[in-house]
């Protein structure tokens, strides 16, 4: 899987399946893009038809990936392996339930008042 010639320019690729019941719609897409943006490596996400820039919310949401969609993640750069580890987890592990996060958020909001 890993085809890095030198550590500074690794290329890591991984097949993942979207496990989040809501697919990769707006909110999860935002979480993904935010996470991808923290890495120096270039992130590409492909389905059978097209390839999207993992740091672009426009391109990611246009993948219209629903639950069960198989995607190929590719990272190229110094932190490629780390990036793939984290990002594939984001897709494969169910993202925190919206209700849970909302409740947590509400509690926080209440506290801050």
């Amino acid at each position, binding site marked *: 899987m890993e085809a890095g010639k030198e550590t500074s320019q690794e290329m890591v690729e991984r097949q993942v399946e979207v496990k989040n019941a809501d697919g990769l719609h707006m*909110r999860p897409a935002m979480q993904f893009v935010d996470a991808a943006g923290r890495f120096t490596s270039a992130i590409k996400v492909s389905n059978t038809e097209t390839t999207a820039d993992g740091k672009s919310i426009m391109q990611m949401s*246009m993948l*219209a990936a629903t639950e069960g969609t198989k995607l190929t993640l590719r990272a190229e750069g110094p932190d490629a392996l780390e990036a793939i580890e984290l990002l594939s987890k984001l897709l494969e592990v169910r993202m925190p339930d919206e209700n849970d996060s909302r409740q947590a958020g509400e509690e926080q909001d209440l506290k801050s008042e």
Partner: protein
Amino acid sequence: MEIKKGIAVSPGIAIAKSLVIDSEDYRIPRRQINPSQRKAEIERVKIGFKQAFDELSRMKTTVHSDIKQRDIQDIFAVHQRFLQDESLYNKITKKVHNDCVTAEYAVSSVFRQIAGEFAKVEDHYISERAADIYDIERRILRQLLGSKREDIRHLTEEVVIAARELNPTHTAGFDKRYVRGVVSDAGGRTSHAAIVARALGIPAVVALEDLSGSISGGDIIIVDGNRGVVVINPDDETLEEYRKYSLDFVALESKLDGLREKPAVTRDGVKIRLLGNIEFPDEVELVLRKGGEGIGLYRTEFLYLSSLSEPTEDEHYQAYSDTIRVFKHWPVTIRTMDLGADKYTQSKRFAPEPNPFLGLRSIRFCLQNLVMFKTQLRAILRASVLGDVRVMFPLITNLGELMQAKMIMRDVMEDLDEEGIKYDHQIKVGIMIETPSAALTAFSLARDVDFFSIGTNDLTQYTLAVDRSNELVSTIYSEVDPAVLRLIRTVLRDAHKVGIDVSICGEMASEPEYITLLLGLGFRKISIAPPMIPEIKQIIRSVTIEECNRLAREVIAMHSRRQITSFLRDAAKKILPEAF
């Protein structure tokens, strides 16, 4: 005067001048620029993005005070990601550069192309996101054009907002002091506008088809969020009627809320059970607050419409058990999936049907999608140990369908037995009576179920062969048409003969004018929209069954709908003058 029927998504009554938003068309003419101007235009794109981003940041902080608006904040956060999206920005600036067009034109054409891509996706949830894209586009264009558009944040008089489709910006900008109601052409039960209007407590009616096209700014609009009715430019009589209704509604609401603890008993001591129809989980509390004694109709469609994929068994279970726990020993009647003739079944799985209301919908759809159907039944059965749960099949047209549905339920029960999972073995099974065929064969059907619930909306539509949302024929639609009443009587008679429970859960039961008739016909269990419970209870408490019976006998002898309608209206005015 024009009357439109849509879906009531947030209760209350509003009467105000209309403010039509979204009518200004931002279609930007293609204007060429000199190559030398390109740099300046690209700079304008950059500033437009930046200002739109900043505006969202400001809006995020202003809505922060209200916890319920958290969803709006999330949406704005997503919009901001788009405004930070380099590839989107580059696409636009490249267009300015390559095609020598203005910033406005480049922004507009790129966003419209993206929105078009979204709208093409055959998934209800994703395609609806096109509205978000248009919202972002408009925000940037507003910066670029510097237009002083009519802004709902700077209102000086009370208005009803009318729009094709409401987007997060509109709803976040609402100033509750002036915005009295919301009506929109598009939007379903799960649309953004519906949810937000409820959270803010403004009456709203959606899915009004071409409403915004028939309204001009300044027209007087009545929004009846209790019944899903919108009246445009009402005549004096209607206006007066609704003014009274609106004032009385507020007065009644506070007065009637005092009735909460009092039973729904007629003056001569007959107990009537008032239950609530619910759609969203947040309505559960409302039923209790208004004094409902359980759920007579738990619509489960929201589970299918609110998420991108089919709900899992656990999602079903979670939703049901949350509700059942609230009601404890009170009945919760869960209606199995009743979709069809709408986006879900039409876009997700099939080529559109030519005649969806007579097509693969509701129980028919379930009987052909057994995995999905069984998932829901399993969840209902599992939840049945938590309280008094009943299951109800919609749109049954013949005994065969009922037997099939029951057989599938037995299969699911056997599976649960094998797995050692507990459920209520005596769970009550009932059906909706909402087709003429079911009403006419009620006697046969009654022997195989524990209860009937009459769904008057569909029963009326199918009996009179009229689509009530089609304004060309909607005047034919009436639940008190002699033909419909005759079927209702048949059902009641046959149910009583066999000795099963029968209730009514259609909108007819939420009509104060009809309640005495329903009691007179023999209904003792009525399930209605939660906001209407106190008012209906008040009427029940001020009549005797004796007079209801007399009234029903008179109505049954009448030959025309018109006669029946005016007779009932007069009768109702005598009973509860303040409500009419």
